[in-house]
């Protein structure tokens, strides 16, 4: 016991005495906050998103929606530590993708730092983003996709689409520091990426049987509202955690995140009340998410007044996209992954180019602060992400179709419900 203590103090003494080799120094406050943020963002997938989506899917497909969400998180967790982290954050290969130096987290130790936090904490924080992005996609295709196809698709998409895009923006790739695109917590990487992928998948998969003809009641708006509340709660880790430090910018990001969510909910609700006659709870919950999505890329760059506008406009755009535009275009984006995440993500990325102010983060300056070029940069980053994702997803969808012998469940299973036909379970026992 004594010898062990002596040994530890010697080692500690050596470490302290050694001259600092790098500028990076661990900060326990930052580390603590990012550990908490990681746990908050983790909760957004198997709890927040599963409830949000599950409540909107039909009673006979509620468990399948949960299963797809859980499995997306589990697959992402494993893939990330095996190869995802190094593809996204490894040494850049021409700005397009990370190198393979950190396969299986090779070379990362308890002493490795990223800024002022341990690299283990950093990579786990990033992992939760990767997981929720792939899970977001499933909102477009619930009620009809084969479970095996989802597993294959999610695996391929995670590695081949998410990891490169994350590298472009955050991992030292072409879109981030060199090009100057501003994406604080994942407007392009997470929301536009997932929204566009969802749209492509929904278009290839086709409409649900009876879509537009028979009534498709959500299984429980209560679960959806609870899911939105958990997403909102977790989003504080998502946005304020993305500062990667416990500082004033994190506090500001926290503030604008909450304000934008509230404004999104109010504007969606009032728009629906005025145009459709009822202030629905589903509308309020959707507006919360619209406001959160839009503030995500802007969270560390904009001030409070901007967040009021960003949230309010997000609620209106989301409402318009989902309630007015979608029925006219006629595609079946079941739970509106594209309508809410894609469209509001685009608005958020553009709004960042409008409202970014150097008083929050130095060097980040948008159109309204005398830098019109930023709006152009944001526009290019949106188009590049959407184009890469659309083409890449399309290819992956067809590979998946080949590997699993078709993407859709058969008609009988679809009518019976996927809970029963795939999982052999039921979500509720109501007699």
């Amino acid at each position: 016991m004594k010898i062990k203590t002596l040994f530890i103090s010697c080692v500690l003494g050596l470490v302290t005495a050694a001259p600092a080799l790098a500028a990076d120094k661990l900060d326990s406050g930052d580390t603590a906050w990012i550990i908490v943020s990681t746990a908050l963002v983790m909760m957004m997938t198997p709890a927040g998103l599963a409830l949000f989506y599950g409540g909107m899917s039909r009673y006979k497909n509620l468990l399948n929606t949960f299963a797809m969400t859980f499995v997306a998180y589990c697959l992402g967790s494993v893939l990330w530590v095996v190869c995802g982290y190094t593809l996204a954050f490894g040494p850049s290969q021409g700005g397009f993708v990370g190198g393979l130096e950190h396969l299986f987290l090779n070379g990362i130790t308890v002493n490795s730092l990223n800024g002022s936090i341990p690299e283990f904490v950093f990579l786990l924080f990033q992992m939760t983003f990767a997981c929720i992005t792939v899970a977001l996609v499933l909102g477009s295709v619930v009620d009809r996709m084969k479970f095996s196809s989802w597993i294959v698709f999610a695996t391929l998409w995670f590695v081949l689409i998410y990891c490169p895009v994350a590298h472009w923006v955050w991992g030292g790739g072409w879109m981030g520091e060199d090009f100057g695109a501003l994406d604080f917590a994942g407007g392009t990487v997470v929301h536009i990426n997932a929204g566009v992928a969802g749209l492509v998948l929904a278009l290839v998969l086709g409409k649900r049987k009876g879509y537009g003809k028979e009534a498709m009641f959500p299984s429980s708006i209560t679960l959806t509202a609870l899911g939105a509340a958990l997403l909102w709660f977790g989003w504080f880790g998502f946005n304020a955690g993305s500062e990667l430090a416990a500082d004033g910018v994190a506090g500001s990001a926290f503030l604008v995140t909450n304000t934008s969510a509230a404004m999104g909910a109010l504007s969606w609700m009032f728009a629906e009340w005025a145009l459709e006659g009822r202030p629905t709870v589903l509308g309020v919950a959707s507006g919360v998410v619209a406001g959160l999505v839009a503030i995500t890329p802007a969270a560390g760059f904009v001030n409070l007044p901007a967040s009021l506008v960003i949230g309010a406009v997000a609620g209106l755009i989301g409402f318009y996209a989902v309630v007015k535009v979608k029925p006219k275009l006629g595609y079946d984006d079941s739970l509106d992954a594209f309508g809410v995440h894609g469209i509001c993500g685009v608005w958020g990325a553009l709004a960042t180019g409008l409202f970014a102010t150097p008083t929050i983060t130095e060097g980040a300056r948008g159109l309204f602060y005398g830098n019109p070029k930023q709006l152009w940069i944001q526009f290019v980053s949106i188009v590049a992400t959407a184009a890469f994702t659309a083409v890449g997803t399309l290819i992956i969808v067809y590979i998946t179709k080949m590997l699993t012998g078709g993407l859709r469940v058969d008609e009988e299973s679809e009518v019976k419900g996927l809970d029963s036909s795939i999982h052999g379970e039921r979500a509720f026992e109501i007699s």
Partner: protein
Amino acid sequence: MKKIEAIIKPFKLDDVKEALNEIGIQGMTISEVKGYGRQKGHKEIYRGAEYVVDFIPKIKIEIVLPSDRVEQTVTTIREAANTGKLGDGKIFVFAVEEAVRVRTGELGKDAI
């Protein structure tokens, strides 16, 4: 013997049951049913998708009783279930050929 079948609004069940107890009706069978007549259904809207709910929940009361009690019973149900609005329901009267008490085997009026 006659059978009375009354379709009423669910929230009127207690009023009807009490009113029938007061005039000495000693038993009834009820079921939860759905349907529509002139009241029609209502609309529900989820993210802009409008679904018409055609069938509205109602309560169906079934009572079998001697023919001479029918008029008073029908009047009692009608008065207790009336709200004056569309959707108050309907009352139907049928002839009943036979009734059997399972426990004793009694027949006809003795069985009800």
